[in-house]
């Protein structure tokens, strides 16, 4: 079942677009980071960390791929055949959640490799080097995990909303705009701590790309995982009694 989900992703051309978009944006981010780095930052682990953060774009792409992996089925009517082959719809959803791990991880690997392929020779050319530090591996690893979690969140959103454009646009707007606005509004009542539990803010607190404050790493990761479970469950409730006409 997971293999079937992977085959679905692989056998349309959409993945090429997603991959190219991810690589282009990660490449620009990495080049921008090195190109604009002041001399005193060259060779610092802080700069290395910023270079690695270029693969954060993989999180966004994985989120969209996760959404589309469900909405495309409704959009093109393939959901009929999917449910005929697997009438237990919860299994379909679980297979999609598991199936998203592979493309999400792949996106992270390729964007990270590209960022390093740009930054390492460039730094060498400038007479510097890519500084290594113990915490860098943990940081990169957390981006990988976050990318996978975003993919799974996308599957949940897709299962709930089902209509492709509203799902993608709505989810992106929520993460980029609504979470910040609502948190700011909550701040007026001294309740901004609630905002820390929103999925986008929790996951950026987990991978370390978020603003100062907010949840600490592991609680933030747990909140992110909780959102995956909640959205998955809502998606399941939505699909299980649904008529496919």
């Amino acid at each position, binding site marked *: *079942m997971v*293999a*079937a989900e992977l*085959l*679905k992703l692989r*056998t*349309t*051309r*959409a993945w090429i677009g997603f991959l190219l978009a991810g690589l282009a944006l990660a490449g620009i981010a990495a080049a921008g980071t090195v190109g604009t780095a002041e001399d005193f930052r060259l060779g610092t682990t802080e700069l290395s960390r910023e270079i690695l953060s270029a693969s954060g774009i993989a999180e966004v792409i994985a989120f969209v791929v996760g959404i589309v992996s469900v909405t*495309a089925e409704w959009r*093109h*009517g*393939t959901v*009929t*055949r*999917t*449910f*005929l*082959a*697997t*009438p*237990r719809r919860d299994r379909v959803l679980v297979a999609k959640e598991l199936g998203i791990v592979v493309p999400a991880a792949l996106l992270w690997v390729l964007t990270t490799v590209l960022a390093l392929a740009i930054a390492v020779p460039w730094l060498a050319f400038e007479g510097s080097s890519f500084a290594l530090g113990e915490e860098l591996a943990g940081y990169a690893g957390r981006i990988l995990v976050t990318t996978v979690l975003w993919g799974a969140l996308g599957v949940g959103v897709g299962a709930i909303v089902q209509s492709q454009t509203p799902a993608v646009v709505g989810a992106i707007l929520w993460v980029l705009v609504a979470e910040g606005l609502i948190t700011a509004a909550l701040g007026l009542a001294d309740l901004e701590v609630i905002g820390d539990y929103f999925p986008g803010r929790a996951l950026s607190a987990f991978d370390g790309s978020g603003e100062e404050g907010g949840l600490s790493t592991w609680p933030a990761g747990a909140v992110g995982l909780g959102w995956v479970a909640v959205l998955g469950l809502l998606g399941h409730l939505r699909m299980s*009694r649904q*008529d*496919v*006409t």
Partner: protein
Amino acid sequence: MIEVGRLTKRYGATLAVDDLSFAVAPGTVTGFLGPNGAGKSTTLRAILGLVHPTTGTTTVLGVPYRELDRPLERVGAVLETFDAHPGRSGRNHLRVLATAAGLPTSRVDEVLALVELSGVARRRAKGYSLGMRQRLGLAAALLGDPEVLVLDEPANGLDPQGIRWLRDLLRSLAAEGRTVLVSSHVLAEIAQTVDEVVIIHRGRLVHQATMDEVEAMASGGTRVRAPDAERLGSLLADAGVESRSVGDGRLAVSAAPERVGELAAAHGIVLHELTAERATLEEVFLELTRPGSQEIEA
């Protein structure tokens, strides 16, 4: 083999299927007939577990579709809507299904050959003609070599050659002992293929009969031409057979030609013409699904 028990499906205020019950016996080909909007697709989708009944039950091979183990190897289906991703090739579409069902890829190439689609199998499905799409749907249905087939309007979009091909395919599938439920809004399209018909109208069963019975309903009276039509008419009336003059020495008689011919011979009446009259199957179908006709049959 397929059982629909008091199925009712309501979409908001619309009653799509209304207390419908029928059964399809193993090893038969059953035509599922009704005008557009009669509730055929909803019923078939309920049988396949895609639509949840408001009340009532549907089973295939004795259990609800959702409880079938390895369903594609038990039941194959073609539904009216195109269900392949336009950007995926026909072959990859089937590979996805085969993978989900745990079937070997070799089976994909077998069904592609069976529906005569091997030549375009690696092309993206968006370029497929309506006929190719129907064939791809049939290929998907046959993937698991199922014993039961549920086909919703499979002849739609096929040209006359395609319909002939489909008819031959259905006949050979039935000859292998499979159970086939095939819907259509045109009786003549499937009349030569089916053993039985289930006719629904406005979500209700109006008639379930064998094809022989339907044929019998279609057989009508006799048309006869005689120089002394008037005398023949009164002789028929004496024998309790209705007839009416249709002008020019012709009579329309509501009895079989044998009866009319024998009666004429017994009385030495010369006949110039004696023809059996048959209503077409389409006329029978239209009669059965005429508004109000269900009161007669139900």
